């Protein structure tokens, strides 16, 4: 089959590109921080973010070939698609949704061992991220529950709503998050700290059974702990950090998401809540980027734009 040749060629050339990017990054890491448009000009240097941009294009090109001889991507052999991660974000969402539909628990709460194994396996297969409900002996009271729309949080002393770049309609919470400011000052705020507020989540640490006896240690453990939030209704997923404690039991919700998180899960309109999975991300090296996951982290997507 002709398309097999394309896959073979793509793999070989993508490997060369990867080697070139790796060599450049290693040799000139300190200089490249001055190169702000590197993602635009040399997209191979920053694969995950570049792929986000390429994902939609990939989808439109392959799903609407405009008379081209390339068949619809979904007609291609699954193994080949999977190997390349050659999927648009929509297709990826659909794939995750399809994988999770039969695994949805009947009720909100913790997952059984069997459920956890299957759900985490499905997420790993589609998104390329290792996740779990119990990490280092810590487990939330809910791995599947209701999430609600939160407001922005103050990131540093003197922060105001209009300094946030998206979803200003959400407003800003009057108090600080459970872990205080994200940065000491506006000038000192790093990109990572900025993204922590942008993609923060809220979990009910206060109601953990061990909280009464071990709150100090747990407070540190949960601070900015990376969790993935998956909306099984539509297959969207967002990697977040735990940035606040809540919501209160009486709300009937078990989690909260920043305005940007909720938007990425398509839960920012109407009732602004939905049932989601919240699972810990195994990311000891802090390599998984925060934000919506529109591509397979391990396999990436081909670059088009």
């Amino acid at each position, binding site marked *: 089959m*002709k*398309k*097999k*040749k*394309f896959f*073979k*060629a*793509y793999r*070989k*050339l*993508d490997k*060369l*590109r990867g080697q*070139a*990017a790796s*060599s*450049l990054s290693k*040799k*000139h890491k300190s*200089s*490249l921080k*001055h*190169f*702000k*448009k590197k993602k*635009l*000009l*040399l*997209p*191979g*240097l920053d694969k995950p973010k570049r792929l986000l941009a390429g994902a939609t294009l990939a989808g439109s*090109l392959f799903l609407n*070939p405009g008379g*081209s*001889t*390339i068949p619809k991507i979904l007609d291609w052999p699954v193994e080949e698609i999977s190997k390349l991660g050659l999927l648009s974000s929509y297709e990826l969402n659909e794939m995750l949704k399809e994988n999770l539909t039969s695994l949805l628990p009947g009720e909100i709460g913790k997952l059984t061992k069997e459920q956890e194994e299957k759900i985490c396996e499905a997420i790993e297969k589609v998104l390329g991220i290792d996740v779990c409900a119990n990490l280092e002996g810590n487990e939330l009271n809910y791995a599947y529950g209701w999430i609600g729309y939160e407001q922005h949080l103050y990131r540093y002393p003197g922060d105001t709503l209009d300094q946030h770049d998206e979803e200003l309609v959400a407003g800003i919470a009057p108090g600080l998050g459970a872990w205080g400011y994200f940065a000491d000052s506006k000038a000192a705020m790093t990109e990572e700290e900025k993204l922590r507020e942008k993609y923060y989540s809220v979990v009910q640490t206060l109601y953990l059974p061990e909280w009464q006896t071990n709150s100090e240690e747990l407070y540190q453990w949960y601070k900015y702990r990376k969790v993935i939030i998956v909306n099984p209704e539509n297959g969207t997923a967002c990697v977040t950090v735990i940035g606040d404690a809540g919501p209160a039991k009486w709300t009937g919700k078990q989690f909260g998401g920043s305005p940007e998180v909720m938007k990425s899960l398509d839960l920012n309109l109407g009732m602004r809540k939905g049932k989601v999975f919240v699972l810990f991300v195994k990311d000891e090296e802090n390599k998984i980027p925060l934000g919506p996951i529109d591509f397979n982290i391990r396999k990436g997507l*081909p*670059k*088009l*734009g």
Partner: protein
Amino acid sequence: MKKLFWDYLIEVEEIKVKLDKHGMVKEESYHLLKVAHDTFNLKILDEVLSYLPKEKHKEFLKELDEKPDNPKLLEVLKKEVEDIENKIKEVVKNVKQEILEKIEEITD
């Protein structure tokens, strides 16, 4: 695709011909040429930064940010690095050879 000032030194006709010979259709070639082009750019920048004195990196990359297709950037480089144009051409030649070999390896 954003233009870079060294684009005129990159020549992909042979790669196109090779892809055609392997029966790639237009969209497939487009994908593959994009990947090839990225590789050229990454390798060229690697080469340029390797020869350009470290203290000049910041300024050069800032200029590249502002106007990546500015031909004056080459003039700046020429002053700092002897024979830079030929050095880039050599990189292009080697990368092209490598790409052509990879394509040649492909079988049905």
